[in-house]
C-alpha cells in the first residue's frame, strides 16, 4: 500500500453504470465501474473508442448523470442513485479542474484573464484574481506569456495556461481529457511533469483519459476499460500496457467528439 492509498480517496466510484436509450436501442456505456483515486495520484483511463472512458470522466466531472451507483468526491457523496447536490455548477467550480485536449482557452482573453475567469466566477476580486493568475502562470513556467492571446501561444504554452486555469480555484480533483494529444513527445513530457508536480504540491487526484503511449510510465495507475467495464488495472511500467495500447489501435479511431458515443 502506497502513502497515497493510505489516505481517504478523493474520487470514489462505486458500481457506477450509465446507459443511453431504452429497449433495442439501449447502449450500456458504463457497467458497474468501481475505482478509487487518492490524493497525490495521477491515474489514466485507457481503452478503445467506445469503451466508456469519456462517459466515466463526464460522470466524475458531474456533467453527465449516471444511471446507478454511487459517486463520492472529496469525501462528499454527490450521487447515490440521484444527484445529492442541487448546484453541480458550484461543485465543479470548487472541487474539479478540467484540462482539455485542445486547451479550450477563451480566444478573446489573454493568458492572465483566461486563468482569472475561473477565479472571477468563484467570486474573487479582480485584483486578487489577477495576482493569483500571474502566480499560477509563473508556477507553470509560462509567466512570460501572461499578456499573450491564445492565438499567439504555442501548443505547449496554451496547454500550460489551460492547466493554470484548471488549478485556479485549488481543486483537489483534476480531470484531463487527452491533455497531450495535441503535443509532441517533448511537450507531452513537460505537461505530465507539471501534472505530477500539481498532484504532489496540491495533494490532488488527477484522472487522465489518454491514448498517448509515450506517457504511460508517468502514471501511478492505469485503469483499462472495455465495453463499459473496468477490465483491468495495469501496472504502468509493465509491458502489458504497451500491448493493450497496441490492441486498442486495431479498432478504427473515431474522433472523440461526443461523450455519448464514448
Amino acid at each position, binding site marked *: 500500500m502506497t502513502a497515497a492509498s493510505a489516505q481517504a480517496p478523493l474520487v470514489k466510484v462505486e458500481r457506477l453504470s450509465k446507459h443511453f436509450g431504452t429497449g433495442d436501442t439501449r447502449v450500456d456505456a458504463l457497467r458497474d465501474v468501481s475505482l478509487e483515486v487518492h490524493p497525490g495520484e495521477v491515474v489514466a483511463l485507457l481503452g478503445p473508442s467506445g469503451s466508456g472512458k469519456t462517459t466515466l470522466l463526464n460522470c466524475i*466531472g458531474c456533467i453527465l448523470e449516471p444511471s446507478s451507483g454511487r459517486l463520492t468526491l472529496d469525501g462528499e457523496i454527490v450521487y447515490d442513485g440521484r444527484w445529492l447536490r442541487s448546484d453541480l455548477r458550484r461543485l465543479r*467550480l470548487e472541487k474539479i479542474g*478540467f484540462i*482539455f485536449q485542445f486547451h479550450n482557452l477563451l480566444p478573446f482573453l489573454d493568458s492572465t484573464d483566461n486563468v482569472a475567469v475561473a477565479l472571477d466566477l468563484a467570486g474573487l476580486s479582480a485584483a486578487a484574481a489577477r495576482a493569483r493568475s500571474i502566480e499560477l502562470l509563473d508556477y507553470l513556467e509560462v509567466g512570460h506569456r501572461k499578456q499573450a492571446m491564445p492565438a499567439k501561444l504555442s501548443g505547449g504554452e496554451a496547454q500550460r495556461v489551460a492547466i493554470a486555469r484548471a488549478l485556479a480555484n485549488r481543486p483537489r480533483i483534476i480531470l484531463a481529457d487527452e491533455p497531450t494529444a495535441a503535443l509532441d513527445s517533448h511537450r507531452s513530457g513537460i505537461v505530465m511533469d507539471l501534472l505530477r508536480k500539481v498532484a504532489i504540491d496540491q495533494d490532488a487526484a488527477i484522472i487522465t483519459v489518454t491514448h498517448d503511449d509515450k506517457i504511460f510510465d508517468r502514471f501511478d495507475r492505469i485503469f483499462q476499460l472495455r465495453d463499459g467495464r473496468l477490465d483491468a488495472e495495469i501496472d504502468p511500467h509493465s509491458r502489458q500496457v504497451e500491448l493493450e495500447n497496441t490492441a486498442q489501435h486495431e479498432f478504427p479511431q473515431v474522433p*472523440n*467528439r461526443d461523450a455519448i458515443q464514448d
Partner: protein
Amino acid sequence: MNLAYRDVKHNLPRFALTCVGLSLLLGIVITILGIYQGSLDDALRQVRATNPDLWVVEAGTNGPFAEASRISGDTREMIARVYGVERAGGVTYQSVQTVHRDVPLRLFVIGFEPGRPGGPQKLATGRGIMRSHYEMIADRSAGLAVGDEVPLGTRGHKFTVVGLIQDEVTASGDPVAYIPLHDAQTLQFELAPPVGRREAARGGPLQTADTVNAVVAKVSSFVSVPEVVAAVARWKHLNALTEAQQETLVTRFVIEKQRRQMGMFTVLLVIVSAVIIALIIYTLTLDKLRSIATLKLIGAPDRTIVGLIVQQALFMGITGFFAGLALVISFKDYFPRRVVLVPDNIVLLFAIVIVVCLAASSLGVRLALKVDPATALGG
C-alpha cells in the same frame, strides 16, 4: 470580468462593421420618423402661419386645406362686421408650377390682403409686400433670392421676390409663397389668351370672379371664439372652424395616409432590424459555442452566459442607434424633405430598439443555454 466587452474588443472590426450596418438601418428608421414629424410640423405651420382664431369656409366643406372651398370675396366684409371679430382677411390657396432659371419650381401660393390677417407672420429677410401687384414673399426652400423674378400664371406675370420666410412648406413639401390677393384671384381665374378669345367669342365671362377660398379672422380677446362661430353659423352658406378644428383636420385627415405609410415603413424596418440583430447574435453565438461550453464546464452560471449574449446585443443596438442618430443629425439638413427630430419620438424609438435587442438576443440565448458542457471535452 466583462466577457461581452472582451469579446467585442477582440472582434472589434467585425463588431464595428456590424454596428455601421445597423446604424444605417436605424438611421433610416429615425429619418422616416423625422420626415413624418416634419410633414406634421409643416402642415401645422401652414395652419398656424396665418395665426387666425377663425376660418370661415364654404358651407359643407372642411376647407381650405382638407378640401376645396370657394366663397364670395365680399364675405370678408360680412365677417368683419360680426360682433367680436377684430379683423378679417380673404385668402386663396393654390398650387402652381412654373419654371425659374430653367428649373421647374412648384409653389403653394397664398393670396392675402396686405395689412389684414392671412399674410406671413415673420420674415427671415427682405420686406413685406408694399405694392398692390406682382410682389412675392417665398419660403427659402424654393431656392429663390430677394430680387428674383418668378413668372406665374397662364400669362406669365412676373412676380418680384421682396422677402423670404423660413420653414414654411406644405405637408407635401412644396414651399409657400405669398402674393397679393387680387393677383392670386387673377391667377386662379385668368385664361390663356387663346382660351380667353374663345370664351369671348361664345359670350362667356371675361372678368375674374371675386372669390376667395377662406376668410380668416382674429377675434377680440373679450369675446369667446365659439360665440363668434355660432354667429357665423347662422349664414347657411358658410362654415366656421376654429384653429384647433383646422389643426385636427390637417393632422387627422390631410396627412393621415402619409402617417400610415410611414408608420408601416417604420414597423417594417424595425422588424428587419430585429431579424438582422437576431441573426448576427445567433451567428456570433454559434462561433462561441465551444467557449460557452468551456465556461459552463468550469462553473459559469447561466446568468454569465446570458449576460455575454444580451450585453453584446444591447451593445450593438445602442451603438447602432446613436451612430444612426448622429448620422441623421449630421445630414438632415441636406435631405430634400424637412426632417424634424422630436425628443419624445427618439426616446420611444430608443426604448423600442432596446426591447428589440432583448427579443432578438433570445434566439442566441436559447442556443447558448442548450449547449452541453460536455462538448468542451474531446476533440
